[in-house]
């Protein structure tokens, strides 16, 4: 059975539907990547899954349980973690405090988990007492992803983790995402850098105007001439 199973999702803003029946199914411990042109509804589908946007029609199942339209704070308890694309760190809190807030729902000792995050994102350790607002864009993305890892989620949802980063940082982030996945975390992410993202993807979803256009393994999508020509920029 799939870990995440979103079927026929219709959702949008202010009565205007952006998603017109999107399907996303992802098996446990896999990386799923959603790509597509601007306005295709990539970020919207993530928000709909994470309860940030009302799903008008369709259903979302996590591990066989119906989580459609469940509030984000409840989903965190179910093992979902979400990293928004923008405003994804607490700017006035230190790096350490950001991570502690990620562990807000935990009542056990999570110090080992903090060390684990510092181990994945090594540059953060030296800056643990600095306010996150003083960090560079790449470091902030590390803080945001680290924060989301604090609950030891089963499914990590990333909204454009490399947006606005220099190519150097980009491959670093992709490598860290691979590391996190190797540790057993299922990852669903939206990416603009489609080629690089599909390279690490077990499954890719190509959205266009709020519907699934192509679904397949990352490799298959990269090799598909139609996908390559229309969605990967030739």
């Amino acid at each position: 059975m799939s870990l995440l199973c979103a079927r026929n999702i219709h959702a949008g803003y202010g009565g205007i539907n952006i998603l017109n029946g999107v399907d996303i199914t992802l098996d446990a411990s896999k990386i799923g990547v959603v790509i597509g042109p601007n306005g295709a509804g990539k970020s919207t589908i993530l928000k709909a899954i994470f309860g940030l946007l009302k799903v008008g029609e369709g259903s979302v199942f996590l591990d066989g349980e119906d989580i459609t339209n469940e509030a984000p704070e409840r989903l965190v308890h179910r093992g979902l973690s979400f990293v928004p694309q923008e405003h994804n760190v607490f700017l006035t809190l230190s790096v350490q405090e950001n991570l502690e807030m990620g562990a807000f729902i935990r009542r056990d000792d999570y110090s080992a988990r903090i060390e684990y995050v510092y181990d994945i994102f090594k540059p953060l350790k030296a800056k643990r007492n600095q306010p996150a607002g003083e960090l560079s864009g790449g470091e902030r993305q590390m803080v945001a992803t680290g924060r989301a890892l604090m609950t030891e989620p089963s499914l990590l949802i990333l909204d454009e983790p490399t947006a606005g980063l220099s190519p150097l940082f980009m491959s670093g982030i992709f490598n860290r995402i691979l590391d996190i996945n190797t540790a057993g975390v299922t990852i669903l992410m939206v990416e603009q850098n489609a080629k690089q993202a599909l390279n690490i993807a077990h499954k890719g979803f190509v959205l266009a105007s709020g519907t699934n256009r192509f679904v397949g393994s990352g490799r298959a999508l990269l090799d598909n001439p139609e996908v390559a020509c229309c969605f990967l920029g030739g």
Partner: protein
Amino acid sequence: MNEFIFFLNKVVIDGVVIGGIYALGAIGVTLIFGILRFAHFAHGDMMTLGAGLSLAIAVVLSQAGLSTPLPLGFVAMPIAMALTAALAVGIDRIVYKPLREAGVRPVVLVMASVGVMLMVQGLVRFFAGSRMRSFYFSEHKNIFRIHLPFIAARKPLVITEPQILLIVLTVAVVIALHIFLTRTRDGKAMRAMSDNADLARVTGIDTARVVRLTWIIGGALACAGGTMLSLDVTFKPDLSFNILLPIFAAAIVGGIGKPYGAVAGGFLVGFSETLAVFNWSILLRPVKDYVPHWLHVPANLSLIPTEYKITVPFFILIVVLIWRPTGIFKGRVI
């Protein structure tokens, strides 16, 4: 020398006292703004309500025959603080929470708080009447006269017992608030939610709990501020008229949403008031003989008359909003 002591009494001590009271109110205003994003206009009346509760409890304690080394009103205050905090949480549940859940714009919440302000005002008058009442109905107020150890100083520094208690209380509150905000899970969650409420929800922070804590702290400190002010002067049912503007000025000057800024802003506004109404010609008295006689020194050299004291926070507010809308501590732009 006596003139200098007069200055200490009128400007420094009075400034610290009124500044501390403003700070206690402004912390609540700034926390509520930081978490719930609206100006809580009922805060001044929450201070009145808290003071009224302290007075009522003090009367009960006195009738029960209790006599304490500290003023009864001060002994009653912790109970009143708990009650005011509970009322603040209750008012939030009945008035503001349904509005928040309906997703209204902040201005609707502001208007609702004006409604709450009028309601609380009516309630206080209903129970306490409209006249002033002294907290010292059965005790007498201890006044300390401290003679400074130099010969020229013949007049003493004058400070009352409630003033000393207020200074101690304000210091304790600021330290406790600092520890709460930087060392505890709930305090950090409060800062996180004030920083980015959407991300706080996504992170799994119990935002309803943070809101509740905000009202508890805001309500309790409002009660403390109101009670201390009433102990220092008298309990007036229209207390909030004179205090609402200064505490908002303090919160905004300090940078709205910034608790330390609110404390700094409280003292800034307090000292500005005492400095503005101080009669500066008194300080010129010792050198009066050396002032050329053609330079006429008027008997009263205060910047503004005492009865216009309320214009000081108003003026500060305007200056800050024009020159530095984020306040001293870089709060949010209003």
